């Protein structure tokens, strides 16, 4: 029996003691920080403001726009389409490319006012088993209605990019059950454009539709 075990995760935010006050230092930091820090700064808003749509952009873009007042560069950084990336290293490389190009074209770089420097942080993830399991799509639907948003977050976002499994856990499971079309439909969603509750409802509806067919 192919059973789906719903897990959940809780994050601890760590401080790296590393700051940046201009683009050059931000670039230097992005090159040096651990992947857990890239993940933190690109997913923090999604997690903390998961009720908002559209959500605020990643931390780098937000700081560049709101603190350095570099609207154009901020927009480019916020437009990086995270769903297209399969590894955090690739995502880091993209940010490095954008910032390097900006520095090549712009001699002058504004400095953050004192007290508004960029502080690099990271997160540690603690994964727990929940009591919820499913062996059929209808059990899956039932359970997905009950688990916390942290569980949904883990199986969709963390599984694909942080754990670098290539795709989300739900699609992998439905694929194993032979429900390829449903697996593909869930994989095709851009989860970054939903609120977490919106995403939960969307997935439940997809499963419901396939289950009733």
């Amino acid at each position: 029996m192919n059973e789906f075990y719903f897990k959940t995760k809780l994050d601890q935010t760590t401080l790296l003691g590393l700051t940046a006050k201009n683009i050059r230092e931000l670039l230097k930091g992005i090159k040096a920080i651990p992947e857990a820090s890239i993940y933190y700064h690109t997913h923090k808003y999604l997690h903390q403001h998961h009720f908002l749509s559209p959500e605020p952009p990643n931390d780098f873009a937000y700081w560049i726009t709101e603190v350095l007042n570099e609207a154009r560069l901020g927009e480019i950084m916020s437009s990086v389409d995270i769903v297209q990336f399969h590894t955090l290293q690739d995502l880091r490389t993209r940010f490095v490319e954008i910032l390097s190009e900006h520095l090549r074209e712009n001699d002058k770089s504004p400095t953050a006012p004192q007290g508004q420097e960029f502080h690099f942080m990271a997160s540690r993830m603690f994964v727990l088993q929940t009591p919820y399991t499913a062996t059929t799509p209808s059990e899956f639907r039932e359970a997905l209605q009950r688990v916390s948003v942290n569980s949904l977050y883990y199986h969709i976002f963390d599984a694909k990019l942080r754990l670098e499994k290539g795709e989300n856990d739900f699609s992998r499971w439905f694929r194993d059950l032979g429900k390829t079309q449903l697996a593909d439909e869930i994989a095709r969603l851009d989860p970054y454009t939903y609120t977490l509750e919106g995403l939960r409802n969307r997935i439940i509806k997809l499963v419901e539709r396939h289950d009733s067919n």
Partner: protein
Amino acid sequence: MIRIEDYSPIVGQATIDELFLLAQRLQGNEIQNINSTAVGGGVAEILTRMIPLLTQLGVRSRWDVIKGDEKFFSITKKFHNGLHGVPVEVSHEEYDTFIEVNRLNVGMLSFADIVFVHDPQPVALVEERKNIGRRWIWRCHIDFSKPNERIWSFLQQFIEQYDTAVFSAPAFARKLAIPQVLISPSIDPLSDKNKDLPDDLINSIFSRFGIDRTRPVITQISRFDYLKDPLGVIKAYKIAKRHVDVQLVLAGGGATDDPEGPTIMQQVQEEAAKDKDVFVLFLPPSSDIEINALQRGSTVVLQKSLKEGFGLTVSEALWKARPTIASAVGGIPLQIAHKYSGILTHSIEGTAYWIKQLVNEPEYARKLGVNGKEHIKNNFLITRHIKDYLLLFISLFRRNDIEYL
């Protein structure tokens, strides 16, 4: 007594279930909190609320208070001021006394499995670690962004003997040889300051103070202290008042260590005397219900601080879904994402501009308030604080970025 399940209707049962799951991982370990005061101040307040909840979750917890004489506390007061950037001189003898008092306390304490030390006063207890082992955490509750370097390096020798240091805001992080964790403070949604209030109680409190609820009310709750910029608030109000019919409420305690405090208070009162729509309310410490009502009944809440530790009054206002305009200082940017869950400003003019906007566009203001409340619900309630503490204790036994419990 408040029960952990009482938070379920607010944060959801799944969140409470996760706390129990985490707590199970700490079975067999006792947590010992150590600080320097049993009453008064934010640390005592949070421990008073937190320890019964941890116990209900099945985590054995206790709380010890170190003993010190007047001389010791005058030295730690100097440390406190110096860490906040105030120029102070601490003599060799005073440093020695500080260590000596900590050593005397070691002899009076029995240590639990996890020793959780709060703030600088008991920091040197960790010297005992070489004799007894245990896991040690140092939790800094104060603003550490620009500490006096001499005091900092004195404290650093002790801090680096701990397993982990915990700070309240990213700006307080330092270059340290041990891991540093961010744990923001929190508010308790079931406390008198934050619980739901019936509308007639809010109305009666407003009428007691003579404030007209049929017209827009702008409120700042804070001490009358230079760093909270009450005069800046009045200036912003006056600019906004040219175009919108608003009242201003400045409410808070009067006590302050700030030498400029009395002058500021006098100026505030002089300004208020000139304008019948400015209300200056000096509230005694037991005014939690009044503060709650003033926040709930306000059209817009301000926190125009020049410097701030974390600024929990912002969380309090947002929890009440109030449109909030606050300075981008200290921990405030963690609580407000500009134009999403509130407004961050940097000047008197900017504050005035946004007062007008939010008074004239109540639908946009309402949306900010709704988002703000949701943000506080997810990130700054006591249940999140408990989760962070449980993770902190668990993390002492595990070191990987991803841990399967």
